[in-house]
């Protein structure tokens, strides 16, 4: 393991220690950059087709309403309008998208356009296609929809009562509900010296709002019934699984193509409704159709991250600060349509005890629909919310019992020597050293001079606080966890595909099943292949983007859930290893020796110890493809390898809800210092440190970039980024004017550090780490808490997002939140 610390002047990691041999572990120049810095990337809206039509969706202005009628006649009269699509047509031409949950959630009918009813402001009701973008927008205004408003429900705790039901077919707003019970919580409670009770905590609704909005350009080939979708869907395999049955076609009839994608962060996973509408339009109008989502649409009607309310949190604690576990009732608000969301009901269980050695955990989990934008796997998906809970628990317990928040963490952290560590529900944390990461973070932020900083801030009239946020980024899912939610589902394990071939002129060509959105897949794949084949990354051509036609996708292909370094690169490694083996076999056949005598070096296959006997890659490619007379009959090589990486997983025990749900666990431990102006509630993050551990770093610069970006998003979510609704169900932050994301001047000075705890379970010892786990949110909440409260006094930070007025309220009325917490000491 290597470790680094950072000198305070420079915000970047300074590498010390050994330089690893080979390309893996080096920050090689990124292949993607040359085109992107010249503006020559190809994002879906850059693709044009002759005579294409532009799509504009007519969307509901009501949170909940019956659709009495939709009249497109006036729209069709407008010169330049090519056609329309309404919910009635969709209901005839397609079947509802399949639902992941058990009944009642299973009975929800979800279509490409609203059928009979709208369920959130922005719900698409009809689509218009016209010759220009502006005309489509004009025509949309001419579509007349007669709505009958219905009562709506915007609060999850209200929704549970089923007084206003969104989906009559389901008969209830509850999508899924269940109790998870591991260890023996009642015994833990009896054994406790203190019981800390927290009445409620709330994780607020926000999303990563990728800069590029969603969209697609769809072409339909009438002769073959083939759709080609140029879009930015980040999990096309899953998209196709939804769309094909709905469209009543075989899955191969849907070809997804993307080259560059402007950020996904989980917000481009459930695009299938709009994509299906575009498919229908392309077929109906016999012309390519293009839909570009607007920022306002992305915020109001695309997807949000999970909003979760935690109630009746009970934490048994021993006198020495050991926490024995916790019990909680969680209500998850998935918005108007669950779609991917029932998985959110289990995915948090990948990190049930967070970073801690807690053995007795009970979670009563309910997911409900409300008349708000649908929710999807926003970065940190479901684990971030749960990890925030565990961090708030540690922080609040430490505060209430007068324990040092550092010591209590170290006491309760899973210890370095305990890895691989099995959690109470059977997940295996592969490796890590949380205490060491914490120490590095504290050092970076100057924790020892905390009291000095506090005095200095107070002398300027400010309140000062330091907080810690520990988090895990669990990666490479075992999709068998979906069966815990619904035993009928036929999903388990995971996979990813890559192909590597040697072309006739000796060119190495790689295709990936993943759908990169900036994570550097072309570059890191090239590093791995180069190291295995004995050439340089510049010699490895990785096709940019994704195309179903490359036959390098499997059911779970895509870029999501912090897994590329494991699954994507696992597939690349597997394919490259196999290709290397074939190249050696071929060379051996040509030279008349054993493949074990052959090495691949400097883009040649040569006999070890005999550099004269060398075949350059070009020769190998040419021999097999064009000049193969005389090769042995039993030589079984193609030099064109397709490899499916499959991590080792078992199906979980559905009865006990027990099993290993993810392969790897990256760590991030952040520390944050805030200064609050007590007169206004305005606060500033004055110092920040982030330490990460993602095992072997394939490309250190890329890893650091992900940490920076995840931190920025977390800081936004902690301070101003929140999706708030008014009483009518209108989103009050539908654009970047009101939904304030961090700009360059908003970022605090950041210090970064890292360690590498290799994963014993992955092909390269690397762990996925792109999501991050929201450590910034945990750290800011803890810092605010530290600034505002002292043992047993002061307010409780109970929400994940704390805008200025929120902090002001905490300062003004500490008793309002103080009463959320009680301590029973025995």
């Amino acid at each position, binding site marked *: 393991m290597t470790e680094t610390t950072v000198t305070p002047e420079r915000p970047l990691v300074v590498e010390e220690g050994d330089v690893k041999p080979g390309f893996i572990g080096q920050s090689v120049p990124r292949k993607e950059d040359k085109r992107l810095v010249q503006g020559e990337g190809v994002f879906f809206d850059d693709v044009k087709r002759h005579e294409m039509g532009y799509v504009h969706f007519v969307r509901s202005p009501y949170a909940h309403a019956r659709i009495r009628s939709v009249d497109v006649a006036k729209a069709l009269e407008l010169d330049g309008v090519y056609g329309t699509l309404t919910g009635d047509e969709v209901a005839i031409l397609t079947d509802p998208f399949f639902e992941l949950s058990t009944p009642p959630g299973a009975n929800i009918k979800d279509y490409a356009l609203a059928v009979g009813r709208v369920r959130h402001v922005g719900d698409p009701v009809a689509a218009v296609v016209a010759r220009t973008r502006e005309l489509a927008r004009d025509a949309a205004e001419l579509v007349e929809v007669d709505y009958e408003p219905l009562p709506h429900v915007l609060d999850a705790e209200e929704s549970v009562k089923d007084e206003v039901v969104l989906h009559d077919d389901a008969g209830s707003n509850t999508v899924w509900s269940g109790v998870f019970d591991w260890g023996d919580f009642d015994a833990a409670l009896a054994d406790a010296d203190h019981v800390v009770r927290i009445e409620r905590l709330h994780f607020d609704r926000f999303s990563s709002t990728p800069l590029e909005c969603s969209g697609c350009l769809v072409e339909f080939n009438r002769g073959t019934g083939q759709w080609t979708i140029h879009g930015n869907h980040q999990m096309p395999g899953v998209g196709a699984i939804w769309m094909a049955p709905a469209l009543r076609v075989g899955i191969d009839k849907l070809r997804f193509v993307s080259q560059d994608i402007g950020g996904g962060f989980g917000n481009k996973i459930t695009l299938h409704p709009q994509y299906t509408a575009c498919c229908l339009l392309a077929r109906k109008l016999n012309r390519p159709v293009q839909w570009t989502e607007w920022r306002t649409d992305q915020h109001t009607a695309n997807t949000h991250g999970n909003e979760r309310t935690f109630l009746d949190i009970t934490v048994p604690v021993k006198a020495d600060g050991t926490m024995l576990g916790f019990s909680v009732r969680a209500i998850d608000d998935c918005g108007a349509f669950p779609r991917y969301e029932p998985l959110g009901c289990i995915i948090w269980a990948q990190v049930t005890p967070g970073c801690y050695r807690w053995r007795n955990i009970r979670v009563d989990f309910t997911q409900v629909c409300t008349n708000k934008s649908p929710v999807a796997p926003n970065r940190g998906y479901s684990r971030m919310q749960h990890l925030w809970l565990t961090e708030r628990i540690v922080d609040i317990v430490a505060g209430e019992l007068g324990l040092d928040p550092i010591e209590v963490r170290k006491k309760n952290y899973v210890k370095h020597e305990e890895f691989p560590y099995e959690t109470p529900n059977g997940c295996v944390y592969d490796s890590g050293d949380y205490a060491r990461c914490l120490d590095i973070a504290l050092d970076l932020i100057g924790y020892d001079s905390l009291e000095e900083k506090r005095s200095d801030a107070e002398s300027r009239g400010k309140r000062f606080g330091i907080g810690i946020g520990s988090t895990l980024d669990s990666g490479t899912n075992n999709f068998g966890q979906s069966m815990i939610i619904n035993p009928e589902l036929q999903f388990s394990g995971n996979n990813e595909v890559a192909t590597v071939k040697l072309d006739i002129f000796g060119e190495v060509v790689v295709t990936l099943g993943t759908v990169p959105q900036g994570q550097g897949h072309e570059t890191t794949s090239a590093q791995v292949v180069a190291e295995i084949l004995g050439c340089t990354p510049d010699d490895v051509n990785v096709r940019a983007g994704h195309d179903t036609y490359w036959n390098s996708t499997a059911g779970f292909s895509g870029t999501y859930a912090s897994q590329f370094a494991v699954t994507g690169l696992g597939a690349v490694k597997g394919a490259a290893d196999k290709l290397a083996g074939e190249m050696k076999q071929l060379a051996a056949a040509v030279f008349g020796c054993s493949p074990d005598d052959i090495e691949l070096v400097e883009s040649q296959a040569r006999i070890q110890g005999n550099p004269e006997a060398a075949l350059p890659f070009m020769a190998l490619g040419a021999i097999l493809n064009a000049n193969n007379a005389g090769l042995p009959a039993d030589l079984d090589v193609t030099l064109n390898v397709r490899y499916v990486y499959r991590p080792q997983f078992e199906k979980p025990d559905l009865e006990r809800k027990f099993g290993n749900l993810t392969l790897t666990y990256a760590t991030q431990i952040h520390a944050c210092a805030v200064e609050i102006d007590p007169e*206004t509630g305005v606060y500033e993050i004055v110092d920040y440190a982030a330490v990460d551990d993602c095992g072997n770093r394939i490309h250190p610069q890329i890893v650091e970039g992900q940490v920076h970006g995840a931190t920025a998003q977390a800081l936004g979510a902690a301070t101003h980024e929140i999706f708030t609704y008014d009483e009518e169900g209108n989103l009050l932050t539908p654009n970047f004017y009101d939904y304030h994301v961090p700009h360059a001047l908003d970022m605090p000075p950041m210090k970064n550090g890292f360690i590498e705890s290799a994963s014993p379970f992955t092909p390269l010892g690397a762990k996925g780490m792109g999501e991050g786990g929201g450590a910034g949110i945990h750290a800011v909440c803890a810092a605010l808490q530290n600034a505002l409260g002292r043992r047993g006094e002061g307010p409780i930070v109970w929400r994940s997002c704390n805008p200025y007025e929120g902090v002001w309220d905490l300062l003004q009325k500490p008793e309002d939140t103080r009463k959320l917490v009680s301590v029973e000491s025995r």
Partner: protein
Amino acid sequence: MLLREVEYARPASVQEALRLLGANDGARALAGGQTLINVMKARAASPDVLVDLADIGELRGIELGSDGTLELGAMTTYTDVIDSAEARARPILGEVCNQIADVQVRNRGTLGGNVCSNDPTNHLPPLLVAIGATMTIIAPGGERSVSAAEFFLGVYMTAVGPGELLTKISVPPGKGDGFASVPIGKDGTCIVNVAASLDGGALRLAIGCVDSVPVLLEPGSTDDDAVRTAVHGANLDPPWDVHASADYRRHLADVLALRAVAQAAGRK
């Protein structure tokens, strides 16, 4: 994001602009477009005709008169003010302009656009009211001057009537000014802003974001108590929105008023 149909003209003179504005009820002046184009993209308002003032030289320029009065053409951009040596006759102007949004917006956004749109969260209306600026308006019949305090009439409504144009803003010289605000993020939209000026003799305090027009107060002295009394006496009834409740805005007005006054006093 996509505008309705509109007609466009780019006159070369004020007279031609007035003619175009008067010819159509739905005609509007287009200055920097940093507000109007966004409004039109959202289709919140859709003028029939846009009269682009970009080519009218007499609307640009910053002049410093011999008596120290600063005259800023209505089409002066924020960047023009920040970069102008003349504008340092009233330093608060450049300092406040430099807090608006970002470089791109400052390069195109104009003083005239900022005051004529009179979005309640704008920076310049309360500032100009506090420092006692004067607006010059031209109509087909002639020119007239309106004090800043009388210029702002309501949300998006000012003393500039249909078929008229703001031509310049005149600012007396001075340094005893303060501006305090709580923006959403650095250089972001203001939740509350307050401008204070001691240069006119007595303290003038103008509170923005709490009403449809800046609220002008004359507390009588710079003492904290006098300022607080004046602010409370104004019985502010601020709007609620996603960034702040009425109570919070009212509270911020209290705090920022004191800070703006302290700044002004410190610089006089």
